[in-house]
């Protein structure tokens, strides 16, 4: 559907208007702090409303890109400004615009230092994230994709915990190492195909030999983002040191960029290489599921445990994508959206008690249910969604991935499904040690119940987790045509390989 308005461009750069406002705020410290918070919340809220407008005008039955928007940029041949969304990116855009205001709300009280700069970083982050999912030009994508690192790096490095500098550098080092290789690959692709337009590149048939190298280069970047085993060790540290809102965005959106990249680049552009490397991806992912689940069991830090659980859950995603079956990819997509909601809620749940007790050590808690009954209920629901209980969104994704996995290999499905048991073990154990028991420590007894603001953050996430658990149809239908297109590329490649 063509609109006369460059609506995606407006949506993407809307938060930048917030940045302008933030820079213009004058007054003494209190006024600046209060106004900064409000500006950021209103702007991100408005962005969300606008993304809903895009969503309602999005036609799920159409396979191609919608709301396309082109412009001249960089005055170079082939490199253009091109935005657009399809069924794969649309859900991520809305997820981003939903989580950003919630993240701002989550840092309402816990961030008191350099509030204006903090909000600027978040606004910038939002623009870059939306841009990443909307960009249909490879160079444009690369800019957004890599620039996301900068505000996140700052958020961890400035507003983070004790070892924030180590964590932020580790984060930066890993992601940069991957992206350098991707850049080289992009240069090669641009010169070979004479274009950087993503839809055109998806139709361009790279030679099998070139695909192999290009796939590996992109893989290096996306695997770090997902993160896949063994390049996952930046994630626990980054999460532990990041402020609550940073963790919410990191787990909710940033990790999904890897999965999105696989679906946008690897599968359609290098289908033969994808088929060739699928067993490697499966192996790494199965290790991720089992290994990191076991590691999660050994954690004493709440955030670290949930961070490791994210690695395990993202293992399901990469498995689903590379099964190259309808159910597998749909399941992976669904799992990413669901994990975006659930992990954001879980990291927020940690933040809530951290704000009260200023520790993330599991042993410092116990018996939280007494002083915070509503919190216990929200946390319980999210914990159950995380272990994939039917009726929550977590189930649909995991189950579809496993359906797809069984078609690829029964061994794969068997090993991956052990994640269901292990996942239940560490999450229940965490919940039990934090929430259950008799509150004996005085600090824990004195913990205050959830306030309205905190419930306002949990509530939409809860509703969505249940809604998508019971009626996942809307989301599945939205992605279906785009998934069919990707599978078309893969099938063509398989045919080509067959005839050779």
């Amino acid at each position: 559907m063509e609109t006369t308005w460059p609506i995606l461009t407006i949506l993407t750069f809307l938060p930048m208007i917030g940045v302008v406002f933030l820079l213009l705020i004058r007054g003494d410290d209190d006024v600046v702090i209060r106004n900064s918070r409000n500006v950021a919340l209103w702007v991100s809220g408005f962005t969300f409303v606008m993304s809903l407008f895009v969503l309602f005008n999005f036609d799920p039955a159409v396979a191609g890109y919608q709301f396309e928007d082109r412009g001249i940029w960089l005055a170079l041949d082939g490199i253009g400004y091109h935005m657009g969304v399809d069924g794969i990116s649309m859900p991520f855009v809305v997820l981003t615009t939903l989580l950003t205001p919630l993240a701002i709300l989550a840092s309402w009280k816990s961030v008191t230092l350099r509030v204006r700069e903090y909000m600027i970083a978040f606004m910038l982050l939002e623009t870059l994230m939306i841009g990443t999912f909307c960009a249909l030009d490879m160079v444009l994508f690369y800019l957004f994709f890599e620039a996301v690192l900068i505000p996140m790096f700052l958020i961890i490095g400035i507003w983070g915990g004790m070892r924030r500098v180590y964590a932020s550098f580790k984060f930066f080092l890993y992601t940069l190492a991957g992206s350098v290789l991707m850049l080289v690959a992009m240069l090669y692709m641009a010169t070979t195909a004479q274009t950087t337009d993503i839809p055109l590149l998806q139709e361009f048939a790279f030679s099998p030999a070139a695909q192999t190298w290009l796939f590996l280069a992109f893989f290096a970047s996306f695997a770090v983002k997902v993160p896949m085993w063994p390049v996952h060790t930046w994630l626990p540290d980054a999460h532990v040191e990041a402020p609550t809102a940073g963790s919410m965005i990191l787990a909710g959106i940033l990790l999904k960029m890897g999965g999105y990249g696989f679906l946008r680049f690897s599968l359609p552009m290098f289908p033969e290489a994808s088929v060739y490397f699928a067993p490697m991806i499966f192996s790494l992912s199965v290790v991720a599921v089992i290994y990191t689940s076991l590691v999660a069991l050994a954690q004493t830090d709440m955030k670290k445990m949930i961070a490791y659980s994210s690695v395990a859950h993202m293992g399901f995603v990469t498995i689903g994508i590379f099964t190259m079956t309808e159910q597998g990819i749909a399941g992976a997509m669904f799992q990413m959206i669901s994990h975006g909601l659930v992990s954001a809620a879980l990291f927020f749940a940690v933040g809530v008690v951290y704000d009260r007790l200023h520790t993330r050590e599991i042993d410092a808690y116990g018996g939280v249910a007494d002083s915070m009954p509503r919190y216990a209920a929200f946390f319980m629901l999210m914990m159950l969604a995380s272990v994939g209980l039917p009726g929550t969104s977590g189930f649909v994704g995991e189950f579809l991935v496993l359906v797809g996995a069984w078609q690829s290999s029964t061994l794969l499905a068997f090993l991956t499904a052990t994640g269901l048991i292990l996942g239940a073990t560490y999450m229940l154990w965490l919940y039990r040690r934090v929430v259950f028991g008799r509150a004996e420590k005085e600090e824990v007894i004195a913990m205050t119940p959830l306030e309205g603001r905190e419930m306002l953050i949990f509530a939409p996430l809860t509703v969505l987790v249940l809604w998508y658990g019971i009626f996942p149809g809307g989301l599945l239908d939205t992605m279906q045509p785009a998934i069919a297109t990707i599978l078309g590329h893969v099938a063509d490649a398989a045919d080509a390989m067959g005839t050779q």
Partner: protein
Amino acid sequence: MITAIVFLPLLGAIGAGIFSLMKNDRGGFIVSIGGIMLSMVLSWVAFITMAVPGINETVFLAKWISSGGFEVDWALRYDALTAVMMIVVTTVSAMVHLYSVGYMSHDNAKPRFMAYLSLFTFAMLMLVTADNLVQMFFGWEGVGVASYLLIGFWYHRPSAHEAAMKAFVVNRVGDFGYALGIFAIFAMTGSVQLDEIFAMAPDLAGRSIEFLSFEVPALELAGMLLFIGAMGKSAQLGLHTWLPDAMEGPTPVSALIHAATMVTAGVFMVCRLSPMLEFAPFTLDFITIVGALTAIFAATIGFTQFDIKRVIAYSTCSQLGYMFFAAGVSAYPAAMFHLTTHAFFKALLFLGAGSVIHALSDEQDMRRMGGVWKKIPFTYSMMWIGSLALAGFPFFAGYFSKDMILEAAWAQHRFTGEFAYILGIMAAFLTAFYSWRLLFMTFHGKPRASDEVMSHVHESPLVMTIPLFVLAIGAVFSGFLLYDLFVGHHWNDFWGNSILILPEHTAMADAHHVPKIIKLMPLIVGVAGVTLAWLFYIAVPGMPALVARVFKPLHLLFFNKWFVDELYDALLVRPSVRLGRLFWSRGDIGIIDAFGPNGMSALVSRFSVLCSRMQTGYVFHYAFAMLIGVVALVAWYARTIGG
């Protein structure tokens, strides 16, 4: 009507949940009990007006998951099998709801408790009305969660939340099998919808499928995987360890979930899948053997325990074994029959035990009971009725159903059936023994409780005794009344197409024609068991200790539950945690980080130190380096020119 039956308890749960936030006890009771009572009445109406005349119905509610060919709907299926489960679930649940008003009267989170009970009932009804395997899985895990919440209801007690977690995780192991079973069936038939699967089952009988690189018979694989799920939920040998620990939950929970309904879900599932399992003879034999072994295994533990609830819990485990081996010999109606009667008398026993516990100020250890039968005569008589029904004395419910199972097992005329029959008879002996041991220890002899506790002993209030009475009616008459309908000569009229039995599986048909001695055997061992219990606990009170001493190793084995928990702990639990720590400290920190980012940055900084050392500031050092460079350059140049 079917929709209302299923969703009324959900409304009750939501209502009670809201009242729980408002701390309104009365409101919580009214909505939850109102919901379940209405649901119970409607399910009886449905049973009489629809199930008995043989009317089936499927109500489509909404689309659930649809991706590629993987289509799952929310739909309610009503047939004879569902109808039976519905009346059992709603009736016992209604009684337990009512009973809880009295039992939980001292608790300060009553509406939350009622909400969980109603939520459980909803999930259980979703399970039994499921039209496809995935929706059944929804109910399956849903009841698991409700059970988890209820076992851990008294979350202050470490033992309670430990037991809750154990129940969930052990059930997850079973669910792992169930989920794989669904994938296998989808891969074979392209559907998860029950009727479609059943229609294809005969054709699949001879086919094989690849699993973990083995070629295995397709239906056997699916059947075995799904049965693993049933083993978890129904606490069969190997995955039974959670059930006794689940007794940490309040007693009404034990009666509803861990005796009458949830734990029978596995039996229901096997019966539901009969049109498929009938073509998987190996799986059926496996079910028979597991059931028979569980029946005897749990009974051996049951007669050594002292916790009144654990004794009944092991008894449940053992009775579930009976139901499974009945299903295994293709006598599904007998299994369902026993499921129904067992629900009544076992719920009665649990609620009766609850009444005793309530009367004795929350004492559960039978060694500190005794001598109270005169003080609580009503509870005492209810326990007698329950025990008589359990042990299968003539004209009580268990007499009809258990004998039917044993006769059917014998009538299979194969090794597995006879194996099950023999173990079943031995278990019947132990059942009678531990039931009367329980009665004698709890009610007879000298009081062993403290005087203070004894002075408080009182009969329970009406709100608790009425449910007992209703269940007692079921425990006495359900066998007699339902016999003809469920397992009489015309059982096929009632079950219709909800159960399939191949003509060559004749156990059900031949069960009515077995030798007299086979028919009488259960009664004989029952009387023997009661007599022995009387001898041990009334006539010669010193006997138990003496016997325990003489057969010390055996007693230790039984008393410690065959050390299964310890075995799992040593083989699975502790190694997992240790492996997790190892992966973390050696894998993540020791290898990946050490060679990855930390190693890199260390390398870079070492290199830069090296570089900065070269910058010494002495002119002769630079001059020397330059000289080396010039020489090397000249040498290389000369070589290339020369070469």
